[in-house]
């Protein structure tokens, strides 16, 4: 190969012409402001991951090497694993359009006139999210559910002038870790309310929420897959004039339940289920929805519909005074880069399913199918329901006769990704497994898993 550098078109001749225009004889003069003793006097040393493979790589070599890495991950399995990251089927049209250069290459739509496509996508996304949650305003995406929850908590503190966040221990453990991390500085109190039988302890919640509480955060379905009594949470919260943050981690549940009906003031969380690949946990789709009266404290980009100077419908970013590039230290958040492409994916996904499709998907292929699996697998000796009698959506917790990791390694031999070892986050629930059922695990897959578990009961794990 000749000595050109990929993606750079500047030839020797171009370079000479440009240097002449600049008026410097030697290229290195352009770097004169970097003191000599601070310059790197050698080449960078980037060691090759593979013996015998030498950097730089050509396109063909890269495809081979990275292709091998992709193949070393076990994918295209049957997933009974959820716990905050869900394996839903993604319609082909989603990836086609998120792969268009007009969508994946542009920057944040600061100049509306040249970014009307982006802006209209975001406006439509906001509308769809609000129609799902029943609230009035949506931002145009945040990083993920955990960071969205933190932003929502801070938003509630700004709105109430209070600094205490009450959060259920049935909220996703990693979300609570992120909250702990972010609220360590400044005047914050985090109060965790314990779990009783797989659900938020309502008695304790009622005791803990007070006139110091800014927000109460409860996830539904919760980490164990169980429905919480969200109306009761709302009642307790509102009695103390705090804000109720309804946390959504499995967004597909919104097809069946509308948080506004249950008293949510803010709905925050994760919408990865709407068209984003699991991709090892990111990029996913954080979101916050709220009522109009709270919008000036809502973090993140928001798009408004308006007009151009000649009266044509047009779209633009709204409320830049909330944002860091205008208000700097007084901004409601530091967010700049967000997950806009995932918002596009969600919009296409939701348009593809439509009202009826999304409800059929949620109801028949998740809710009903999960109940089938719950019963089918829950009948197998050793796999009893951990929290019997509780209502679930598409996840459920069972006891497990083995160490969950050992069982999962066995299942992997059958290209099955088993459930989450609950004891990983809740030591008191050692040897319990959280299983997830979606439209990608049909009746045959469930029966197949049940057969293997029964077989293992007879033969033992090894």
């Amino acid at each position, binding site marked *: 190969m000749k000595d050109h550098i990929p993606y750079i078109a500047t030839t020797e001749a171009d370079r000479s012409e440009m240097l002449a225009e600049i008026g410097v004889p030697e290229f290195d003069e352009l770097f004169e402001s970097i003191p000599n003793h601070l310059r790197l006097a050698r080449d960078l040393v980037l060691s090759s991951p593979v013996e015998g493979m030498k950097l730089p790589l050509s396109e063909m070599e890269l495809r081979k090497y990275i292709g091998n890495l992709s193949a070393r*991950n076990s*994918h295209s399995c049957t997933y009974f694993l959820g716990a905050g990251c869900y394996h839903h089927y993604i319609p082909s049209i989603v990836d086609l359009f998120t792969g268009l250069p007009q969508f994946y290459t*542009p920057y944040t739509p600061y100049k509306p006139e040249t970014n009307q496509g982006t802006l209209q996508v975001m406006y439509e996304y906001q509308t769809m999210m609000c*129609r*799902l949650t029943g609230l009035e305003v949506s931002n145009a995406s945040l*990083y993920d559910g955990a960071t969205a929850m933190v932003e929502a908590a801070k938003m509630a503190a700004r709105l109430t002038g209070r600094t205490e966040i009450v959060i259920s221990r049935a909220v996703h453990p990693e979300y609570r870790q992120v909250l702990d991390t972010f609220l360590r500085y400044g005047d914050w109190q985090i109060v965790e309310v314990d779990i009783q039988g797989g659900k938020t302890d309502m008695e304790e919640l009622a005791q803990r929420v007070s006139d110091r509480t800014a927000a109460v955060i409860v996830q539904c379905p919760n980490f164990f897959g169980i429905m919480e009594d969200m109306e009761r949470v709302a009642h307790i919260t509102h009695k103390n004039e705090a804000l109720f943050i309804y946390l959504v981690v499995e967004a597909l549940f919104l097809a069946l339940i509308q948080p506004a009906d249950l008293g949510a003031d803010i709905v925050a969380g994760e919408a990865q289920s709407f068209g984003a690949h699991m991709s090892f946990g990111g990029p996913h789709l954080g979101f916050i929805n709220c009522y109009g009266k709270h919008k000036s404290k809502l973090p993140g980009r928001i798009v408004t519909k*308006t007009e151009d100077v000649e009266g044509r419908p*047009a779209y633009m970013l709204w409320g830049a005074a909330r944002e860091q590039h205008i208000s700097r230290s007084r901004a409601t958040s530091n967010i700049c880069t967000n997950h806009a492409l995932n918002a596009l994916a969600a919009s296409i996904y939701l348009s593809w399913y439509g009202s009826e499709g999304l409800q059929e998907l949620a109801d028949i292929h998740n809710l009903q199918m999960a109940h089938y699996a719950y019963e089918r697998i829950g009948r197998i000796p050793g796999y009893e329901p951990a929290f019997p009698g509780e209502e679930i959506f598409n996840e459920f917790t069972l006891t497990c006769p083995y160490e969950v990791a050992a069982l999962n390694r066995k299942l*992997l031999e059958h290209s099955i990704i088993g459930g*989450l070892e609950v004891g990983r986050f809740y030591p008191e629930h050692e040897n319990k497994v959280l299983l997830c059922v979606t439209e990608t695990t049909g009746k045959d897959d469930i029966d197949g898993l049940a057969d293997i578990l029964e077989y293992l009961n007879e033969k033992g794990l090894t």
Partner: protein
Amino acid sequence: MMERGGVKTIFEESKGGRAAYTLPRTAIGQRDLLGNYRRKGLNLPQVSERQIAAHYQNLAELNFSPYAEMDPLGSCTMKYNPPLMESLASQEGFLDIHPYQDESSIQGTLEVMYYLDQYLREITGMAAFTLQPSAGAHGESTGIMIGGAYFRSKGQRRTKILAPDSAHGTNPASVTNLGFEYEQVNSNEKGWVDLADLKARMTEDVAIFMLTNPNTYGLFDPHIGDIAEIIHEKGGLLYYDGANLNAIMGKCRPGDLGFDIVHVNLHKTFATPHAMGGPGAGPTGVVEALKNYLPVPIVVRDRDRYRLIYDLAHTIGKVKAFYGNTPVLVKAFAYILMLGPKGLRTASETAVLHANYMQEALKKRGFKFPYGDQHCMHECVIKYEGIDTLGQLLAERFKKLQATIHFPEANSYMIEPTETETKESMDDYIEAMVEADTAIKDPRAMEELEKGRIYTPIRKVNTRKGMARPCLIEPEEKA
């Protein structure tokens, strides 16, 4: 005349009875679940797949594409995003894996993370990285919290964080949103940090000084050695906002300049796409003394096996669920492998050459550069009264993407051509700027220009109306 019109909303395309989805039929019995909690209605668009295709294709065409046009958005580094990287990162092995599946089944992704960490260490001169942050601002938060935890564990109460007046807005916003006090340091007439002012403000209750170098004027601050000394003398930490790292790869390293914490915007320096605002990735690196404060987990290699490690003595915890935006990491990793050490250095050198070329060429054509007596690095900043009009003309009449305006100062126009543009595309942009400037100054030229084609799908947006009368969701159609 207008070439293109708007696109109806997808809600206006909706009609009862239409649908795009297909789902398998199932044979399991249906039971009555959820009872009274079941929502009453749901109003999502009812459209065919063909309509969806038309809708999003039409919306895509309303965007000016950085593939079609040079995008000189200063500070944002809109370099070319190679399709190869998209295709590599879109392999099922990267997309269809779950964050909690067994470590033995995700070795490919862990190798990407392990080596990307190694490469970023070498490029920046740091001792270790976290790949968890999803963006630059997220990296800033992470870095500040690492600094905060460090001082806490040393029993030092440091509540203030400093940054220059020219800092990105995310710097002060990150500081105050985490509960620290923000204090601004002045720049001097050269566009560099005012050392006397820094010295005066750098007291023992200051935790961190955040600095972008090259800074947002596109200038490399030559007194970086003195700055580091002032900060370290008072026991503080020096933070590198890596937004402009793309100017110095292989030329110098933040670690060697005295920085203690660094965030890197993979979606700038390492060519991963900006995707209308994201996802990006903001890996954050630290010096040896701060290694044990990084978020968990981190990836280590145990002979030929990669593992996720959680037991860091002083870890700040987690800054997002799971591990990071891994497909973005794959793209950046592949880009580094493709360019190699020499290619990365040439990328930085060429970016600097291009920005200086545009600065000189525009200077000769009458544009004013407040700091134009110095060579710039990867971007240059013009001062222009009426910059909004210039930007609008460039877009509307010349089909050009507008550069960054009103930053770092009011009436600034910050141009970053990047290394991937050709001399011809830069000349073309310069030409358009000259013509637009002429039209602004000469009514007759403006009249001529206004007879020509309009390239934007709409005219100037009525921003005052948009701000005053927000319409943030489409009203529901009446049944």
